[in-house]
Every structure is written in structure tokens, then in C-alpha cells.
């Protein structure tokens, strides 16, 4: 039986914090030199360390992350997950560790789309089931589903989609590696799309774990680790509101 009043953290493997992520979204988590790396990987290690646990990363697909966090395959999911009301109905979130601004990305020579209202009726490529997809639909875009960020950008550059919505950080990382990309972007003001709160996703019936993770994040924020990691991966501090 699951005892929801217990404040003790239940772990998939005792002594280990098992962290689910995709590992296919730079700079959050990706693969470099044969090792899993990225902001969320370093963050996961830091959280585990503060909690006195060993960190173990389990990469898999998004649907599997959703299916597995309910089935105790992972203790938490660190995968650039935005807090939404719908998700909160099913899962618990930690306190946010990233406040992410949304950017509207188009081809350099695009003159049709100047701000978010202009996407109405335009072909906008977005990740399946992401919050970006919800926002794009809200503004009346014709959405084109595309699972990988790199694919999405390819679609835009090949002229097969007019634009996309994504986090500013993801795009900046891409532009850092591809300075000649035929892309421009515009930050969507938070009055149109609220900046997304990114947090660790976990099962609802594990308040002990939530407490532990929140405490760790608080300490990491306090001792400057969060800021240091943010600067390392995003060249700016996006961990503050």
C-alpha cells in the first residue's frame, strides 16, 4: 500500500536517485564525448549529492518518461518539463529551477511573421504534446508535428514550415554552434506567453521525495550552484524569475 502521509522518500533503488530524461535536447541534456551531459545532468548530480544520494540517469522516450514516473521506473524526471495545470493534476512538481522565455523563430527573410499574433493560419512546427504546441494552437496556427528540435529547424530552413515556438535558451545554444543558420527570432513578451516554469516531475504519492528535492534545489540556489550551471550552459542566468 502507498502511504501518502509518509514523509519518507520512497526510492526506486535505495540510496540512489533515479532520474529519467531523454538526453536528446541540448543544452538541457545531450551526449558529448560519449557521456551524457548538459544542464539538467549536472543539476541532477547536484540534487542527488545534496540529498546524500547517488545519481543514476535513465534515458528514454518522452512517453516512456510519463509512463515510467508513475510506475516507479524513475524517481524524478528532469527533461525541461514545464509546469502546467493539466500536468499538476497527475503529477507533482518540485520548485522551478528554470524560468524560460519563449521565442518565435522564423527564417531570416521572413516578413510575414513579426509577432505572435501573426502566426494565425501559418504553418508552425512544434513538438508533439509540448506546451509550445498548445500555445501555437491557441494563437490559431496550423501546427505541424515534429519531434526533434533539430528537425524543426531544418523544416523552417527548408521552407516547409514558417516558424516555431521554443525556449530562447535552446535556440541560443543552437545558434552558438551554427552561427550561419538562416534563422532569426523574436522574444515573445510574457504578457502574451508566460515564461515557462521548468521543474522536476515526480509521482504524486511521494511527498517525502518532493520535500527532499525542494530542499536540495533551495540549497543549490542559495550556494550559487544553479547560477553557475546556468551560466555554463546558457551563457546567462535563467534560474531566477
Amino acid at each position, binding site marked *: 500500500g502507498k502511504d501518502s502521509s509518509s514523509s519518507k522518500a520512497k526510492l526506486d533503488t535505495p540510496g540512489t536517485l533515479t532520474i529519467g530524461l531523454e538526453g536528446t535536447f541540448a543544452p538541457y541534456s545531450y551526449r558529448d564525448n560519449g557521456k551524457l551531459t548538459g544542464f539538467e545532468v549536472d543539476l541532477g548530480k547536484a540534487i542527488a549529492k545534496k540529498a546524500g544520494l547517488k545519481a543514476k540517469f535513465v534515458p528514454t522516450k*518522452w*512517453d516512456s518518461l510519463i509512463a515510467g514516473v508513475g510506475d516507479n521506473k524513475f524517481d524524478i524526471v528532469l527533461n525541461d518539463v514545464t509546469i502546467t495545470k493539466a500536468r499538476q493534476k497527475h503529477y507533482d512538481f518540485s520548485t522551478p529551477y528554470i524560468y524560460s522565455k519563449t521565442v518565435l523563430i522564423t527564417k531570416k527573410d521572413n516578413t510575414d511573421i513579426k509577432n505572435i499574433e501573426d502566426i494565425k493560419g501559418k504553418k508552425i512546427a512544434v513538438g*508533439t504534446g509540448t506546451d509550445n504546441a498548445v500555445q501555437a494552437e491557441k494563437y490559431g496556427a496550423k501546427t505541424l508535428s515534429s519531434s526533434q528540435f533539430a528537425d524543426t529547424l531544418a523544416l523552417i530552413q*527548408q521552407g516547409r514550415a514558417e516558424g516555431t515556438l521554443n525556449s530562447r535558451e535552446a535556440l541560443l545554444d543552437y545558434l552558438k554552434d551554427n552561427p550561419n543558420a538562416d534563422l532569426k527570432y523574436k522574444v515573445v513578451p510574457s504578457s502574451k506567453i508566460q515564461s515557462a516554469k521548468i521543474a522536476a516531475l515526480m509521482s504524486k504519492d511521494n511527498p517525502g521525495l518532493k520535500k527532499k528535492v525542494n530542499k536540495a534545489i533551495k540549497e543549490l540556489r542559495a550556494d550559487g550552484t544553479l547560477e553557475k550551471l546556468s551560466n555554463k550552459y546558457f551563457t546567462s542566468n535563467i534560474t531566477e524569475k
Partner: protein
Amino acid sequence: MWNTIVNSTPEIFWAGVKFTIPLTLISFVIGFVIAVGTALVRISRPKGNPVFAGLWEFLKLFLSFYVWLFRSTPLLVQLFIVFFGLPNVGIQFDAFTAGIITFSLNTGAYCSETVRGAILSIPESQWEAAYSIGMTYRQVLFRIVFPQALRVALPPLSNSFIGLVKDTSLASSITILEMFMVSQQIAAKNYEPLLMYSIVAVVYALFCTVLSIAQHYLEKYMSRYVQVTGE
């Protein structure tokens, strides 16, 4: 849960009717034609003038390469290269066309092996008997050898067909919003991937069962002339 099922099933089913079924049917028909063509060229023995024979040998080599290539690499990569890769060399298809092209070529490669084996399993004597009443190569092939070879090839061909139904789910990676993707999108909102997958599985099973039944009757029809031994 009941609500979820009632709400999402029609949506998933509709995606199946809109994409899964046409992708499967069109690709299988084209793939089958490719398979037959490839098999025929590969078993043929060129004759006549040496230039022509040389070109023919080259075509055979090329087709062997095609079969090897499409059997040996993952379908997903094939889809990717056709949809995202070819535009780099100036060839661009919309998603549906790219899907049809890739699925057809992939099925064609697998089925060509099946068809080749089946044609070779028809005894030489059937060719001779047909030639002896004055038939041309094409007549022998299409009126005598093919109908018999098809009977032999039916079970593995239907395996390929049923496999293709499900392989079309990969079309989501080239922006086609097919059944599986729809179920994933719904799962992204209701956080019940297991349930959504089960619904999608039922819809697939429905399509596949129709195919299995068709196969069963076709098999029966094609075996109408075969005597079954007693006991």
C-alpha cells in the same frame, strides 16, 4: 477511463483512416509492383547483343544493391534521408509523398526476395509446357507462372503487408500525424500513455484482422486446385 476511451478512439480511428490506411495500401501496391519487377530482372538471363546484355547485367547489379540497401538499413533512417536529406541536393517532397516513396521502396525490397523465391519454386516444366503451345515469355509469366507463384508467396507477403500497416507509424517522424502520433498527443495531455497505446493497438488489430481474414480467403481461393491429402 471510460470517458477517455470514448473521446479519443474516434480521433485515433480517423487518423488511421486518413493516413495509416492510404499509406499502407498505396505503398503496398507500388511496393508489390517494384518487387515483381525487381524479382523478374534479377532472375532473368540477358541474351542478344552484347551491349544490351552488358547494360542488363548492370541493371541486375544495381537492383541487388537496392535490395541490399533497403533491407540492411532502418526504415526510419530511410524516411529521414528522403524527407530531410534529399532537399539538400535539391529534391524536395511533401511528407506524404516522401512517406509513399520510402515505404514503397522498403516493402519492394523485402517482397522482391519473397517473389523471387516463389517464382523459382515453380518447376521449369511449367515454362516448357507453356512455351510448347506457342506462348511468349510474357504470356507464360503472367498467365502460367505468376498465378502459381502467388499461392506460394502469399503467407510471407501477407506478413509484409501486416508489418507495413504498423511500420507506417514511423511516418510521424516526417511530420505525418498518423494514428500513433495522435495517440501520443492525446497521451501528452491526459498522461495515460499506456491506455492510449492500448487503444491504438486495438485499432491496429482491427485493420490487421481485416487483412488476415482477406489473406485467409485469398489463400483458400488460390489453393482451390490443390488436393488435400487425407488423414
